[in-house]
């Protein structure tokens, strides 16, 4: 795949091997059928444990059987997965960054020992419940709440747009604890087989079709005290998870864009019109030149972000900039790639239009593009445009 300024030449041996293994795995076991899954609106669930066996979930964390690879290696993995399909990367992002990360960072020792090994191998599937039907960009006004009762809590509320909720064994649910002063947001580990939990599937999506999405309904769901994530209180909990996941998205989007670029470049050199390959025309060359430049600058941002994260200097605002820029880039360039493929580009035989449709989801999930703009605006000016 395109690496115009040779960024990957500076990877260490371990990072290169992780990239190559992920690429081979995706090429041989996922890519051949992913278009079919996308059309059918199904996720290849047999991959869940296969990816777990390979250590694709939260590999940048340490302990509990997790390999603890570098942030660059983790980014490269997300990139290779999303080069296949955003749904595949979303599976790994949710399991790793949104479910395993909060348990690892904020969980009790018992919670870590119970959940991290089986989430890591894919034996158990997790989901992350933050967004509500009436509360998307403004999650702190959530209405899902917990009341203290019988050495535990009773949860009520509804969450939506939850990747993997219909197949999840456990949900990390963020809810306001009304029994405590100021009703702080707390994290609850809710096993989905508890009485009062429903996980309806959302069908007929026009984007991210090879990914399972649903709701979480909580109707007087009792969880014991030991299911509360003890080490975090307030919006810092869910927001810190999202920073982890968005880091993976900033990398993943480049993968989708690179796949679009390579498909378009190959097509342009193979496709003959007016007596020769269309790649000899300036209009096509301009598109490829622009696409390559945009991909390369996004790559630079991702590699720098990895360095900052590795040394503990990455801020949520850095991640906002990278997520915002790289997803927009991928969304725009996938459309150009589709266009270069002409009529062939609207079929599932080629990846660009599938990526293009997927990226509509990626553009507005995990913080919409516009909200990331305001996060940067606040950081640059000191004024928060989203506060009244």
């Amino acid at each position, binding site marked *: 795949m395109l690496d115009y300024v040779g960024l990957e030449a500076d990877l260490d041996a371990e990072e290169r*091997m992780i990239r190559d293994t992920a690429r081979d795995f995706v090429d041989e076991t996922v890519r051949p059928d992913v278009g079919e899954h996308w059309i059918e609106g199904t996720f290849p669930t047999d991959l869940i444990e296969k990816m777990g066996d390979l*250590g694709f979930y939260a590999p940048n964390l340490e302990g509990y059987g997790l*390999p603890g690879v570098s942030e660059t*290696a983790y980014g490269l993995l997300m990139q290779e997965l999303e080069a296949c399909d955003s749904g595949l990367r979303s599976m790994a992002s949710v399991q790793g960054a949104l479910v395993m990360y909060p348990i690892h960072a904020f969980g009790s020792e018992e919670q870590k020992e119970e959940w991290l090994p089986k989430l890591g191998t894919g034996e158990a599937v997790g989901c992350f419940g933050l967004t509500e039907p009436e509360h998307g960009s403004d999650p702190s006004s959530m209405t899902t709440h917990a009341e203290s009762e019988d050495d535990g809590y009773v949860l009520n509320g509804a969450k939506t747009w939850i990747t993997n909720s219909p197949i999840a064994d456990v949900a990390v649910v963020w809810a306001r604890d009304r029994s405590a002063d100021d009703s702080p947001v707390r994290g609850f580990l809710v096993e989905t087989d508890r009485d009062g939990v429903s996980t309806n599937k959302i069908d007929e999506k026009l984007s991210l079709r090879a990914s399972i999405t649903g709701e979480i309904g909580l109707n007087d769901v009792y969880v014991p005290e030991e299911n509360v994530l003890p080490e975090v209180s307030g919006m810092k909990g869910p927001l810190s998870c999202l920073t982890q996941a968005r880091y993976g998205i900033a990398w993943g989007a480049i993968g989708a864009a690179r796949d679009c670029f390579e498909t378009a470049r190959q097509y342009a050199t193979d496709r003959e019109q007016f007596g020769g390959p269309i790649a000899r025309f300036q209009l096509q060359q301009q598109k490829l030149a622009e696409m390559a430049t945009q991909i390369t600058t996004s790559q630079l941002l991702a590699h720098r972000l990895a360095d900052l994260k590795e040394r503990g200097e990455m801020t949520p605002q850095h991640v906002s900039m990278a997520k915002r820029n790289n997803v927009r880039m991928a969304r725009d360039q996938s459309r150009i790639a589709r266009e270069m493929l002409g009529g062939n580009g609207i079929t599932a035989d080629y990846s660009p239009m599938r990526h293009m449709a997927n990226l509509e989801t990626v553009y507005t999930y995990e913080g919409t593009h516009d909200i990331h703009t305001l996060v940067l605006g606040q950081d640059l000016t000191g004024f928060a445009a989203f506060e009244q």
Partner: protein
Amino acid sequence: MKILVTVKEVAEAEDDFEIDGLDIDERYLEYDLNEWDDYAVEEAVTIAEDGDDVEVVSVTIGPERAEETVRMALAKGVDRAIRVWDDDLESADMLDVGTKADILAAVVEEEDPDLVFSGVQANDDGFGATGVALAEVVDMEWGAVVNDLDLDAEGGVAHVHRELEGGVEELTDIELPAVLTIQTGINEPRYASLRGIRQAQRKPLDVQGLGDLGLDASVLESAVSRTAMFEPESESDVTVFEGGAEEEAGQLADLLRDKGVVEG
């Protein structure tokens, strides 16, 4: 029990390439673990996982670049690796089967394995003889083109299926110690896990020169030399069938009848 797996980093040329002297221009080459050796590694690692106290050692002859390939074998579960290389090997024009067999034989003598697995052939130069030649030098039993293996470690016997010409299979028992050349399809090679890749960076990878193995540059003398490199002219015609599966099948049937392959 100890299993030695010989692995090779092979060059793969891009679809379009240029020839530079007696070789394909380096710009068009990529390097990877030889496909057959991947199956040999998998077979050895599976035996190690299923058995007690089985050590798997892999050996390669190759420059420093080949370490990445060897590390991939370590990531898949090989315990340690040996890479044979020095200035004499670096300056050799080519390594023929005899040379490789002699070098690998020195490693076999040092390691004293119960089993040696080698890929049937390498998918770059494709001599397809190193494993058997090695058995001859070290005077071990051997089985070539093994596509099924049932090892009786206690009895010291390998029950194998060997692929012969014309779709015929030979079922035979081979006494250990032995060299088996492993055919693709004998198993399903695994992907290295991220944990395995991490561990591989810390596993021993020992570099040995000819002198360390009790050999000298005379082992490189060869009766074989490369005299030319060229791309063969394509002489065959291509017929592209078009239509649905049924139509295409009909067109193929007509062609086979025309050519006299089938009657009627």
